Every structure is written in structure tokens, then in C-alpha cells.
């Protein structure tokens, strides 16, 4: 089982996978808390066009992904008031980006294989350079998040009060989307454009259902993310099924029972209440996620 570890490509996969799992779990926590999971989904789809464009130009797909997702992240951040409420607009842009990607790839000769690998990940074919790029960007992202940890947490839980207290909510949310964009670009190498949810949202969503305190939830999310990735790579290296299937299946298989079995009072609502208790009562305008929680 473990003797596959001596191959360099498996070592590369483990190194890159670990960096991605850590950064995706941390960013994913804030993504879940901010109710922006759909933005993560959209960013990865838009990144597909970038990756395909890079393949066409003969550049490393990671750079194409970075350019497109960061651009789209800043765009979504700037237009947040307009676009966040507009599923259809995001959906149409996403669709257009995907079709642009398929156009770029159709102009390239290794068409189907390349499309497949961008859509569903190629962690086992990752190069030393990719590992280095992943390590640098992941460290930068985690560093920035640690640096901005408190204001970011505050604006995620209660944007109105944070705004009133003079926290720069809007710049922070744009910066956060840029970090999401970088994370998405890194994660695409492991699970591909289409399965980004499994690494970005899966661990964090499971963790927030289990523990309430942010520090514990983030730690748990990181542990879950790492174990999904490691188990996925190990199983795939020993079997014949693809890594991204294993990661998607484990992520879903852990999330499902937790979602239904975790006592209702743990998780997001408890955290929110605790924060609200400490602060002056939030005003009447609830954001969309809170409102849906109330509905159920």
C-alpha cells in the first residue's frame, strides 16, 4: 500500500495535494461562513477558460487559471452588490467561460485528453515546478489569511456591525475573493474545475457542522481536507480509479452523515448566536444565508 510513495510522481502529488488541502480548507471555512460557496463554484468554471487558453498558448495551465480567476474574483467583488444576487448573470458568464474553454481546447490538438484533465484534475501528472508554484502561492495565501484573520472573521460573521465599527468591509471582501481565486487555481490541479467543491467546501462544511469555535473548525477542516487528499491519492495510486473520484466520494460520504446526524445546535447557528451575543444586536437586515437558516 505505502510502497508507492517511493515514486517521484506520487511524492509530487502528495506534496502538492497537501498544500492544496490545507489552503482550501482554510479558505473554504470563510467561504462557507460568508455564504459565498456559489462564487467558488463560478470562479473555478471561469478558470477553465483560462487554463484552456494557457494550454493553447503553450503556457502552464496554472498561470492561465490564476489570471482568469483573479480577474473574475476582483470583478465579482467590485460588482458584489449587483452580481451576488444574480444567479442568472453568473450562470450565463460561467456558461460562456466554459464554452470559451472548449473553443480554445478544440483549437489545440490533444483536445479531449487536455479537457478531461483540466475538468477532473491531474494530480498524478504534476511536475516539480507545479509543486513549487503551489507551495509558494499556498504559503502566501495562508500567510495573508492569518494576518487578516480577525477582521476577516468579524466581517464574515457580521458585516453590518463590522462596517459600523470601521472595518473596511468592501476592500476585505475583494481581497478575500482574490484569495479564493488563488486557492481555486491551486485546487484545480488536484480535483479539477468541476469537483472544486469537494476540497474547497466539503471539509469546511463538515467541520462547521461539528464544532462551533472558528479555530477548532478551521483545524478540523484542515485535518479532514488532508486526510481526504492523502487517502484519495493512496487509493488511486494502488488502484485504477481516478483520484478525483475518491476525493469526491470520501468528501460526500463524510459530509452526508454529519449533515444529518450532527445535533442541530452545533455548527453555524451556534457560532452566529455567540457572536451576536457579544456584539450589539444586528439590525433587521439579515443577509441571505441567515434568512434561509431562519426559514427552515
Amino acid at each position, binding site marked *: 500500500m505505502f510502497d508507492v510513495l517511493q515514486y517521484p510522481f506520487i511524492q509530487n502529488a502528495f506534496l502538492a495535494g497537501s498544500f492544496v488541502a490545507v489552503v482550501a480548507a482554510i479558505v473554504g471555512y470563510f467561504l*462557507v461562513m460568508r*455564504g459565498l*460557496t*456559489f462564487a467558488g*463554484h463560478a470562479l473555478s*468554471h471561469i478558470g477553465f477558460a483560462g487554463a484552456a487558453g494557457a494550454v493553447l498558448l503553450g503556457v502552464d495551465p496554472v498561470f492561465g487559471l490564476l489570471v482568469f480567476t483573479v480577474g473574475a474574483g476582483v470583478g465579482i467583488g467590485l460588482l458584489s452588490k449587483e452580481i*451576488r*444576487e*444574480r*444567479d*442568472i*448573470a453568473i*450562470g*450565463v*458568464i*460561467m*456558461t*460562456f467561460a*466554459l*464554452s*470559451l474553454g*472548449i*473553443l480554445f481546447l*478544440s*483549437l489545440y490538438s490533444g*483536445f*479531449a*485528453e487536455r*479537457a*478531461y484533465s483540466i*475538468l*477532473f484534475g491531474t494530480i498524478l501528472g504534476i511536475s516539480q515546478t507545479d509543486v513549487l508554484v503551489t507551495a509558494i502561492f499556498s504559503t502566501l495565501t495562508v500567510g495573508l489569511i492569518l494576518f487578516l484573520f480577525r477582521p476577516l472573521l468579524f466581517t464574515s460573521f457580521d458585516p453590518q456591525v463590522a462596517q459600523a465599527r470601521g472595518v473596511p468591509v468592501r476592500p476585505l471582501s475583494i481581497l478575500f475573493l482574490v484569495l479564493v481565486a488563488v486557492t481555486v487555481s491551486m485546487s484545480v490541479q488536484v480535483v479539477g474545475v*468541476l*469537483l*472544486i*467543491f*469537494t476540497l474547497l*467546501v*466539503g471539509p469546511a*462544511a463538515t467541520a462547521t457542522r461539528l464544532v462551533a469555535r472558528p479555530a477548532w473548525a478551521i483545524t478540523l477542516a484542515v485535518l479532514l481536507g488532508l486526510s481526504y487528499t492523502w487517502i484519495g491519492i493512496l487509493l488511486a495510486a494502488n488502484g*485504477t*480509479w*481516478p483520484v*478525483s*473520484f475518491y*476525493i*469526491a*466520494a470520501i*468528501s*460526500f460520504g463524510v*459530509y*452526508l452523515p454529519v*449533515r444529518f446526524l450532527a445535533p442541530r445546535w452545533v455548527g453555524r447557528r451556534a457560532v452566529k448566536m455567540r457572536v451576536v451575543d457579544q456584539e450589539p444586536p444586528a439590525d433587521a437586515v439579515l443577509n*441571505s*444565508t441567515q*434568512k*434561509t437558516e*431562519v*426559514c*427552515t
Partner: protein
Amino acid sequence: MLELFQQSFVQNAFLAGTIVALVTAIMGYFVVLRAQAFAGHALSHIGFAGATAAVLLGISSLLGMFAFTLLAALGMGALGERVRGRDVEIGMVLSFALGLGVLFLNLYTRQGAQTVGILFGSILSVTRSDVLVTLACGIATLLLLILIFRPLLFASIDPEVAQARGVPVQLLSVAFLLLLAITISEAVQVVGVLLVFALLVAPAAAAIRLTSRPAAALALSIVLGLAFTWGGLVLAFVGRWPVSFYIAALSALFYFAAIGLDRLRKPRRGLQSSIAPDSCKVLGHHPIGHEERMSASEAAH
């Protein structure tokens, strides 16, 4: 150009494309009106697992799509209003379905080409029997839709009042989701799993931006859907780029043009446009979007 039409694959593509464009444009109108764009997105992704399972079993991928999307539609219908706003849950199910699809394709040998066909459409390889299946399903869908047209429109525009008047809102909602599942399975042949939005949502959303009268919006939606499909096919034959790229590009272009036009006229139209809210899960800051009222009334219960 015209001699292209003597070739059977071109005829099949145009026939299937036309049927799909018609059905998706009409269904899309209700999808936008009922703010179920995300449900359409979800159904198509779940269908991917079905289509790939069918490829693995050696049967028509259309059958696999039907089986999975109909089951998923029943599930969504059973969950009803509780599905709304559950991004994380829906996202997890979607990813798992896609992961399953990858597995099925991996078990099948010719993975690459098949994947791209299912994900991005393969209208140029549609056979005559596919056209017949599409035609039969399209006619059945449209007949059923005509049968429930008035109550469905009522229930879509104002569910509470419809419920109070004795319209079986819940039943209609499940029936609509089942029709949507069939429509999406057909649309996947033309534009693929990932680009269903381009035919299902974009024409109707653009039409609703331009006119608020149901009949006019429906007619405009059909015209736009047919224009995108035919335009995409013709351009693909002339220009050699993939059909689904042209269709998605045309629909994106028209949708944003329609938004621009709507913005220009907005001061005159005032509140009218908010009758058709186009956000299906974020209940945001639309002043009187019907979802907001629904969620507010739910919270009150």
C-alpha cells in the same frame, strides 16, 4: 452552404436542435419565472452520472440521463421549498454526481472523447433515432405543459394566492420538475451538461428583461432560442468552431444586451420588472421579489 443540408448529419442536427430549442425556450420561461435556474443546473450535472453510466452499460446515454434526472427531480420535489438556498448541500450532491461520472468513464475505455461529448454536447453526431426520441419527448413535454399551462403560470407568479384559490401548487411543482428533467436530458445532446444554461435560461431571461407580458415573453424566448441554435449550427458549419461555443456565446451576448436595454428603459418601467425575479437562491435585496415575500411568509409561519 445549401448543399450541406443534403447530408443527413446536418439534417439531424438541425431537426434535433430545433425541437430542443423550442422546448427549452418554453420550459425556460417557467424556470426563470419560478427562480429554478439552479435546479436546472443541478439536474444537468446529476444527469452526467446517468449519461456516463449508460455509456458504460452500452445503452443510449439519453436513457441514462432520463433515469437519473427524473429520479433527482422526484427527490427535489419531495424536498420542496427546503431545497432553496442550500448551496452547500446541492453543491456536494452535484460534485458527487460528477465524481461518479468520472468513475464510470474511467471504467470505460474511450474516456476522453465521450466525456467531452457529454459535457459540451455532440449535436453533430445525433442519429435519426435520437431525433425521433427527441421529437416524441418534446411533443409529450409540450402537450403536458399546455395542459397545465394556466395553473402553472398562476402558481409560478403568485404561489400563495394560487394555493389559497385551491390550485395544487405542490403537485404542479413536482410535475414541472419532472418535465424539466426530460427537457434537460434532451438539451444535453445539443449543448452538453455544462452549457444547459445557454439554452434553458438565457433566452427566457433575456425575453423577460425585454417584455413583462407572458405571451410576448414566451414568443420572444422561442424566437431567441431558435435564433441561438440555428445561428450556432450555421456558424459552426461555416467557421469550424464547436457548435456549443457559438450557442453559448450568442446567448451570453444577447442576455447582456437585454440587460443593457432593460437598464436604459428602467426609469419608465419602474417596479414592473420585479415581477420576474431572476435570483433563485440569494434572497438579497430585491424590493418586492416574490421569493422574498415567500421566505418572509415562511419565516412568519
